[in-house]
């Protein structure tokens, strides 16, 4: 018989003061510059008024790789990581987010998961080429072009 399910510890906001604790120098660089599949993934985090979110923390996770990058004053972030097989999971924490938001960065629009989404919104998960081996992906927390966010926790029971 499975053990009873414990309720998870509730999430709380990362707040405005994480910058001296969580970011680290190599955080944004999940792979080295000379990695054969290295790509740059960059963009901005924007609020519902289209204003930059200067105190967000982004994390990515790929096989054998992890990246962490805080946003700058203009809401921008920049990772160097490996070109994914399908997508890069992206997690965003920020002051004003009481729990983080999950999304996915696709480099092309032909993935089956995207086909199942509202056609008006699916483009929010597709990065745009912005140079050789460089992709731009903005995260819009709210508004007409709100990024599609994901929910991964199975129902308890």
């Amino acid at each position, binding site marked *: 018989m*499975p*053990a*009873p*399910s*414990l*309720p*998870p*510890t*509730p*999430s*709380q*906001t*990362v*707040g*405005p*003061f*994480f*910058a*001296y*604790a*969580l970011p*680290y120098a*190599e*955080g944004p660089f999940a792979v080295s510059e000379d990695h054969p599949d290295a790509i740059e993934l960059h963009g901005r985090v924007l609020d*519902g*008024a289209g204003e930059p*979110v200067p*105190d967000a923390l982004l*994390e990515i*996770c*790929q*096989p054998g790789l*992890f990246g962490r990058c805080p946003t700058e004053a203009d809401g921008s972030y920049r990772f160097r990581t490996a070109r*994914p097989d399908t*997508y*890069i*999971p992206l*997690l965003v*924490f920020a*002051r*004003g*987010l*009481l729990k*983080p*938001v*999950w999304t*996915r960065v696709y480099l092309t629009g032909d993935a089956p*998961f995207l086909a199942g*989404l509202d056609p008006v919104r699916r483009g929010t998960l597709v990065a745009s080429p912005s140079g050789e081996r460089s992709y731009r992906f903005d995260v819009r*927390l*709210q508004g007409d072009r*709100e990024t*599609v*966010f*994901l*929910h*991964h*926790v*199975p129902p*308890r029971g």
Partner: protein
Amino acid sequence: MTDDPHPHHLTPSYRSTVLRAPARPPVRPALDPEAAELLDPVYGHQPVGPLDHDLTRQHEGEPIGERIIVTGRVLDSRGRAVPDTLVEIWQANATGRYAHPVDRHPAPLDPNFTGSGRCLTDADGRYRFVTIKPGAYPWRNHPNAWRPAHIHFSVFGTAFTQRLITQMYFPGDPLFAHDPILQSVPRPEDRERLVCAFDLDTTEPEWALGYQWDVVLGATPFEED
């Protein structure tokens, strides 16, 4: 989901949520066991140093404040230990001031206290920090707004979907009822689980008060029995 212990994104009493809370319901993707979200995160940090868990020994002198020990276990949703996972903390000093340039609270910085630490859980899922009790501090959310004393916790787990950042509070704080961040957790029993417990067995005689606080990570879709 009626038993969701987490806050709602939109919590107008916490003003910063108003323009940052996503308005649309999240989409639940069908995850296969190989999904990238279920990977065990290989965090790329420098190795954890032997003193990284002791926030009172990061500078030449000792920080001012009430020395405390904070320890507990990181558990999965079945109550099993999560060993060898990274726990990171950060906090204000004893006066309620963060070592962060954005913090304008006119309380003294402590040259002997930065307020960040980390450790890996042991085979039993246990973490342990030595620090000083953080002070309450004002913020500009509403008139005369004060945050109850808290320590920020960041925990990884064995799947990226378990990633958790939260705040641990101290028992009996009179500011609980006035704090929209703690109150954003809808149910009182869930808020109580963010409050550590004083523990005399953890307390070290002539040295430091001890507190216990366990962290339970969310279930993952393919958890093995």
